[in-house]
């Protein structure tokens, strides 16, 4: 396999006196769906903001290589123009800005951009005639706004789509629409970094990484990641999270030290056994 589309090397981020990311290593190949699984607060969204270059998320150490080029110092706009985009977990509300126009921003350089907007709305099961002219503001429900955000990413045809919890706020009956959209993105050549804390989505990924307290504990087969996450990791982490987590314990230190490669057997480093 050649140079990955995205290579994250030893990335660390410290904010407000806390280590948010601790030496994260991650690779995403072109056209690949790479799930990033982890509990709330594990650093998934922070990693997304660092990758996108958001304000306040400049890494303290490490590198982000996109097609082999270091993204350090590049603005959000410059990263977007290289083909990276992000669908926010809680998308912004825009007073007065029509949905169609918002979606069209990313598609503006493409031929037939209007058709792209309509197709993008249809891809998230929002009728263009109804939603195209509505404002992307507080009058949309959380689920509608989320779909609009995903449609905006889809219309852009990015090289790398970072989707931060695309399934949150979506009703259960509509989860299939979101999965189809993710599949469409990959089928059309986009790599997808699929951030989620719900293991159900992981099965559609080609690769999955498990994130815990700012570190990647495991990268590999999605089914294995899911089994570990649901069967052992989540219960343990929920228990640990309630204590709260103590990063100085040998178990945690061992887990952090194992960052970057497959942890095998999974239970040997990742978390301490419950009493």
């Amino acid at each position: 396999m050649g140079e990955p589309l995205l290579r994250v090397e030893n990335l660390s981020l410290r904010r407000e006196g806390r280590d948010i990311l601790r030496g994260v290593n991650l690779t995403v190949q072109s056209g690949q769906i790479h799930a990033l699984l982890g509990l709330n607060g594990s650093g998934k969204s922070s990693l997304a903001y660092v990758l996108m270059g958001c304000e306040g998320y400049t890494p303290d150490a490490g590198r982000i290589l996109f097609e082999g080029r270091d993204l350090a110092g590049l603005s959000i706009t410059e990263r977007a123009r290289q083909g990276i985009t992000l669908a926010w977990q809680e998308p912004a509300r825009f007073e007065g800005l029509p949905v169609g126009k918002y979606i069209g921003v990313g598609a503006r350089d493409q031929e037939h951009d209007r058709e792209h907007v309509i197709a993008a709305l249809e891809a998230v099961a929002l009728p263009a005639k109804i939603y195209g002219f509505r404002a992307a503001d507080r009058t949309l429900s959380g689920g509608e706004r989320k779909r609009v955000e995903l449609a905006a990413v889809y219309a852009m045809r990015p090289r790398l789509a970072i989707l931060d919890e695309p399934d949150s706020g979506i009703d259960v009956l509509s989860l299939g629409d979101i999965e189809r959209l993710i599949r469409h993105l990959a089928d059309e050549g986009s790599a997808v970094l699929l951030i989620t804390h719900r293991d159900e989505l992981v099965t559609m990924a080609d690769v999955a990484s498990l994130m815990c307290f700012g570190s990647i504990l495991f990268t590999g087969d999605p089914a294995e990641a899911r089994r570990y996450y649901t069967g052992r990791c989540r219960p343990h982490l929920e228990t640990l999270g309630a204590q709260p987590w103590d990063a100085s314990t040998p178990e945690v230190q061992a887990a952090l030290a194992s960052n970057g490669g497959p942890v095998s057997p999974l239970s040997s480093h990742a978390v301490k056994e419950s009493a």
Partner: protein
Amino acid sequence: MSASTVREHALGQRPGWANEMAAMLEAYREAGGNPDALQLPQVATLVVSANQVLAAHEIPGVHFEAESLEHGVKANIAVEPGAKIERPVHLCFGVIPAEGLQEIMAEYDIGAGAHVEFLAHCSFPNAVKVQHVMEACIRIGEGASLTYTEAHYHGPTGGVEVRPHAGVRVADGGRFITTFSLTRGRVGLMDLDYVVSVGADALAELTTKAYGTGDDKITVREVVRLNGARARGLTKTRVAVRDEAISQVYTTAEGNAPGARGHMSCTEIVRGRAEARNTPLVIVRDDQAQVTHEAAIGTVNRKELESLLARGLDEDEAVDLIIRGMLQ
């Protein structure tokens, strides 16, 4: 031939009428209006250029009385009680030359139970030194509804001084919904001053939008007096200023009767060396009334900005899109 038709015919006989009318229609288009609508027989229309009435087309239920003054026009606009006017009444005011003064003294009488919408466009496309003063007295009868939308276009130089002043009385059960927008071309100097008195079970909604650039100066003064029981009032101010423009927004809402509900919402976006101020004043004189206000003044929301940057817009493009959306 009806009286209205006779008058229109007489207006059309004036020397130079055709050229002036054509210029006004073009100005109307620049202000965002549709000139074709001004020529539909079923649409009531009043067109005033400087101090000349170029067209006054009445339809059943809508009546105009207009006379020229030295520097403007005095107009009485009446909607008959109970009239339901299907199509918006179009008003077109403007000054085509680079310099001039236009004073519009207008009285609006919306009869009890009438429902009507006005679309007013004010255009000063060539203005270098133009003053436009509107002194309006608006009476909305019991159970009547008036929606009044006013859009301005001032051209690129900032040479316009516009002073829209209105006193509005909404009788019991009436509705007054107005939107004033000055978001295309330069503002120049804008001094908006509305005072609205709202009766029992009546409603007033005032929306003001302006986009100041260069050394534009924007002043908005709005007073809503909720005098009747269960009266409702809303002021919504959306202003963006950049360069060295200045905006000052003074809104007052008075809850003077039981069950009155008022809210003031002000959003101002500031860029460059511009300055924005908001001074809300809440007065409550009844223990069963409630008035609230919210204001957000400053730079654009970071999350909104980053969302657009992540689609490839640069910062200026993104800010402009956010501002245009807010002023939509």
